[in-house]
Every structure is written in structure tokens, then in C-alpha cells.
């Protein structure tokens, strides 16, 4: 709206009013409206820090996972069991994001590895800057694998790159076969999709073929693992895959330093 005469000519940035078009008392005038071309991604700041994180961790030969899921899919249990299986072979560190309470952090600490908690309050996701700050509280010289457990949410964390090497999306059989179809942005951004709580599949009449088909069609880029963190089903395969990636990162870093 024009601040001089209050007209609603919103189409031109500079335009002329003549007295016959407007109230007689207003002199002909031009609007000083100007256009500014911005062309900027709103997430550019986060992306830039995420990129810096990537270098920061690569320089220290640390392989980084960003684990996302709905609340209650079993992220903490899966990560706890994964750490138990891997901690004798790689040195693990954890950053865990939660809206409130440090219950998840305490469960992860029971594995004996260093854990830093980020309490996000009302913020529904972790951002790259938070990871950088939290990482400085970890003994990075003694870490090969950094696991970031994101806030339980399948919408917002999808847009925020943290500088991870691998994005893992987790869903459990109790959430239904159509879960990936409801959160396409997240599933399409994942490198690995893990179907958890397979021990409950029969009890909840989980339609495995439909679920796998949905997952594959929606996220053809993602490797799929079916596990039960509780019983150990499929855990060896998943942990081997993770270990392999960790080691290839370590080898690459060594080669770069030669």
C-alpha cells in the first residue's frame, strides 16, 4: 500500500498518480517502492555451518550419523544396542537432542560412552550450529563414530543438514505400513531406512511386503534393514554395515594425510 495516498496499486514498483484518478487534494507523485532481488535460501546459514561441520569431523577422522524417527520408534534402544555391539571395535560418542528431560541421555550413558545432551526446549529439530557446540564438549580425539540422535520428529529435521555422513531414518512396525508415504520429505532424504521392532510384526499384523514396497518406491535411494533392537534380530547385519562405513572413512582420511 502506498504510504502517501493509501492507494492499492501493488503491481508497479514506481508509478504515477494523476489527480483525476485520486482524491483531488493529492498531488501527482511517484511511489518510491523499489524491488530488491534477494534470491537467498532460508537455510543457507545452516547449510554453510553443516558444510563446516563436515570438514571439522572429517579432519578428525570421525564418521557421523544423524538418526531420525517419530517419537517412540526406538531410536534410543537401537542406538544403545548398536553401541554395545560396536564399542570394542570403534570409539563411539553421542549427541542426543530432546525437547525436555535427559532420560534418553542417561540410557545412552549406561553404555559407558561419552554422551552430550542438547535440550531444545520448544525447537523441534537440531541445527548444525548446535552440533558444533555440543561436539566441543566431547573428547573428539578419542572418537571414531559420532551418533547424533535427533529430536523425535519426522517433519522438521528433514530440512536441517547437520553435516552428517549418513542419515538414518527409523520406523517401527507398530507405526503402520504407510508411514513413509506420510513423511516423504524425510524418507527421500535418508541414506538408510531401518524397520525396527520386527519381533512385534506378527502381533500387530504388520504387512511386511507392502511396507517394504512402499519404502522402496518412495525412497529408492535408501538401503533397508529390518531389525529388532530388543531381540537382536538383524542387528549384526546393520552393525557390520555401519562398521564398514566407519572404516572406509578412517582409511580415506589416512590416505588423504599421506
Amino acid at each position, binding site marked *: *500500500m502506498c504510504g502517501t495516498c493509501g492507494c492499492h496499486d501493488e503491481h508497479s514498483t514506481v508509478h504515477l498518480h494523476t489527480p483525476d484518478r485520486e482524491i483531488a487534494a493529492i498531488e501527482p507523485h511517484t511511489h518510491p*517502492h*523499489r524491488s530488491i532481488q534477494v534470491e537467498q*535460501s*532460508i537455510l543457507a546459514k545452516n547449510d554453510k555451518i553443516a558444510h563446516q561441520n563436515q570438514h571439522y569431523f572429517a579432519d578428525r577422522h570421525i564418521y557421523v550419523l544423524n538418526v531420525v524417527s517419530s517419537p517412540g520408534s526406538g531410536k534410543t534402544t537401537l542406538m544403545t544396542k548398536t553401541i554395545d555391539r560396536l564399542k570394542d571395535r570403534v570409539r563411539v560418542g553421542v549427541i542426543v537432542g530432546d525437547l525436555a528431560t535427559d532420560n534418553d541421555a542417561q540410557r545412552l550413558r549406561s553404555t559407558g560412552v561419552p554422551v552430550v545432551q542438547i535440550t531444545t526446549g520448544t525447537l523441534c529439530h537440531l541445527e548444525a550450529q548446535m552440533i558444533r557446540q555440543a561436539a566441543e564438549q566431547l573428547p573428539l580425539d578419542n572418537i571414531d563414530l559420532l551418533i547424533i540422535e535427533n529430536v523425535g520428529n519426522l517433519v522438521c529435521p528433514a530440512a536441517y543438514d547437520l553435516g552428517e555422513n549418513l542419515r538414518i531414518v527409523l520406523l517401527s512396525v507398530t507405526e503402520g505400513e504407510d508411514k513413509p*508415504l506420510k513423511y516423504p520429505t524425510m524418507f527421500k532424504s535418508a541414506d538408510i531406512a531401518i524397520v525396527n521392532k520386527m519381533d512385534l510384526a506378527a502381533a500387530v499384523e504388520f504387512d511386511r511386503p507392502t511396507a517394504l514396497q512402499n519404502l522402496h518406491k518412495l525412497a529408492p535411494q535408501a538401503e533397508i534393514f529390518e531389525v529388532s533392537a530388543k531381540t537382536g534380530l538383524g542387528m549384526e547385519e546393520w552393525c557390520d554395515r555401519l562398521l564398514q562405513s566407519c572404516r572406509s572413512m578412517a582409511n580415506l582420511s589416512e590416505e588423504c594425510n599421506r
Partner: protein
Amino acid sequence: MHEVSLMEQTLEIAIAQTQAQNSTQIHRLKMRIGELSGVVPEALNFAFDVVTRGTIAEGATLQIETVPTICYCSQCDREFHPVDAYIYECPDCGNLSFQIRSGREIELTSLEVS
């Protein structure tokens, strides 16, 4: 939902750009939002009204351009706009594509200021 925090970041950029041009009022913001960005335009509009209150953008118009999803099929060496909103099958060969060329944008394109 993260539309409020996205809108706060957008406004921060918009105000900085406006002040850099020695202008004092924002009349219009144009944004480009990708179909696959996870951002809901209605929620963004709602957030816009809330976060602009009491700022130099109060009363401004938010104009949102939706950016369609464009995928690439490596088999056919062509880009296509998927028929289905989320399952990206190449209309020629039926292969599933995971090379997304556009559709994730969350951008502030331009401002109209005075």
C-alpha cells in the same frame, strides 16, 4: 512445525536487506517453496502474520510461488515432473528416480520496499 522459525529467519534476512538499502518499510515478500520442502504454505502464511507484527513488514503481502518437483531419469537421460506426488516413476521407462533436481527450495526471492 518449523514454519515459525523459518519465517523468523526469512524476516531477519528481509529486514537486513531492506535496511541495507536505506528503506524503512517492506510491502511485499516473494518466496519460492518447493513441493518436496516439507513446508506447508498455509502454515507459512499464518506464521508470517504472527512474526511480522510490530515490525517494518507488518501489513506486507507474502507471495508464495510453488516450485514443482523435477526428477532426472538416468536411464532415459531426461528430466520429468512426476505424476505421483511422492513416487517418482519415469513416465517413459518406469524406473524409480532418486535424483531430485528441484522441489526442495525454501527461498526468499525478492522484496518490495520503500
